[in-house]
């Protein structure tokens, strides 16, 4: 009996000590981890906009998030809620029905930067909605604004890849031409599917206009050598191509479909489909949203 007591006590002591240390470390690192995730996201967005180590982002560049929520009313009807930043650091929630007609505009009592944390944001949005409504976060879109003019949209998307899902981000110019594609998460096979993250594959999407994107497909042909070297900045430098030459080659291949990766057609198709879906859905939604903003005469920040 005494033995059992002793064993139980010492095992309990080990567990309690372990949990205490863990709790302490968690409290110390949790904030830093979240901050890091945010920073990584910001870095990806800046990279898509063409800013990075070589070219610092200008000071007047502002990146505004737009949060999309799916709202279910107490009667069971579905509507969409867009959280938009207004001029003067105010925030509103615009609720639209499924056909795009505005239902109501609710002021949100918080600054846009304080809404970055999802748990906090969910609470605030649910509190602002009428009692009995439920809201679920669906997507965060980023709008880059420079000197009061929209510079670019950055839209995240998800698609089923070869192994697990692939998370991606597409940046679009105001006239919906793709200006960059980034893969933010994937577990494709290294050497095969993981090549979708490489410049020479991602950059094939750059420059494709909305009309081209709509009928974009994947071809199982080898990537032409001149095109390959123009897509990868490092290779272009090695080959001694000037900026004009690169532009010329890219223009020549602008109407081409996406060249599939050797041995990873499924991953190539998945990313292409992901980009096409993301862009098409976004364009539809933005038209509806801009229309609603005009109707409600909101002075949004971008």
């Amino acid at each position, binding site marked *: 009996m005494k*033995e059992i007591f*002793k*064993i139980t006590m*010492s*095992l309990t*002591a*080990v*567990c309690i000590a*372990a949990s205490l*240390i*863990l709790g302490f*470390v*968690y409290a110390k*690192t*949790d904030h*830093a*981890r979240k901050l*890091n*995730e945010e920073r*990584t996201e910001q870095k990806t967005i800046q990279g898509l906009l063409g800013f990075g180590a070589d070219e610092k982002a200008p000071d007047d560049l502002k990146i505004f998030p737009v949060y999309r929520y799916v709202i279910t009313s107490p009667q069971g009807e579905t509507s969409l809620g867009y959280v938009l930043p207004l001029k003067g650091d105010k925030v509103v929630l615009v609720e639209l029905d499924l056909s795009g007609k505005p239902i109501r505009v609710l002021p949100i009592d918080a600054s846009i930067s304080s809404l970055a944390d999802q748990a906090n944001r969910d609470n605030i949005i649910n509190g602002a909605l009428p009692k009995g409504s439920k809201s679920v976060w669906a997507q965060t879109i980023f709008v880059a604004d420079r000197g009061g003019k929209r510079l670019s949209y950055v839209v995240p998307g998800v698609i089923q890849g070869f192994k697990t899902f692939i998370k991606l981000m597409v940046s679009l110019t105001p006239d919906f031409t793709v200006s960059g594609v980034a893969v933010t*998460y994937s577990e494709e*096979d*290294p*050497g*095969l599917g993981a090549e979708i993250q490489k410049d020479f594959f991602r950059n094939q999407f750059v420059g494709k206009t909305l009309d081209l994107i709509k009928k974009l497909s994947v071809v199982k042909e080898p990537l032409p050598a001149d095109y390959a070297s123009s897509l990868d900045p*490092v290779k272009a430098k*090695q080959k001694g191509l000037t900026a004009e030459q690169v532009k010329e080659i890219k223009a020549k291949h602008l109407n081409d479909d996406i060249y599939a990766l050797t*041995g990873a057609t499924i991953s190539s198709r998945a990313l292409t489909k992901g980009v096409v879906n993301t862009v098409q859905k976004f364009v539809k939604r933005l038209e509806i949203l801009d229309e609603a903003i005009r109707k409600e005469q909101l002075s949004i920040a971008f």
Partner: protein
Amino acid sequence: MNRNVQLLWNGLIPENPIFRLALSMCPAVAVTTSVQNGLMLGLAVIFVQVFSSCTVAIFKSFIHPRIRIPAYVIVIALWVTVIDMILPVISPEVYKQVELFVKLIVVFAIIISRLELFASKEPLIPSFFDGLGMGIGFLFGLCLIGAIREFFGTGQLFGFDILGFNPLLIMVLPAGGFFVIGFIMAIFNWIEYKLTGKIPTSGGAH
């Protein structure tokens, strides 16, 4: 030779956890598609091994022998969770690649076997050096496999293009990891055969 130095050397070559003891093979195949991943996981393992060894060496008199295995598991799980929280803060990009395996350090046989065979019997200082030696040996193994696979599989090292083409794509595929380890083990055996004249029997693998 100083005993502590000998303990370090012991973990690096004569009792290398991967090639000689054949313990904890899973990460040796799985994360070694590049040197960088191997380096990251290797550092995590050193951290866990050293801290667990020291913890057990200090508190061994408090741990009842009947429950020593569950107690060791909890000690290891503690340090693994700590490193699992710290890594994403230090290097989020590489952490993403090795995430599952950092969590799985808990079940790496090498760590618990060192606690059972060494740290539970010896005082703090030798335990520290034994843990460090084993950790460094593990890091060395991961980096060696990672370098071979990355170089032959993608023509790169540390992410820098060296060859400019892929000589042997199979090296970064699942199968390549098995082949590379098999061949390195054979080379280790061959070296020992040349030095001692005996063919060693590779260790019990679990």
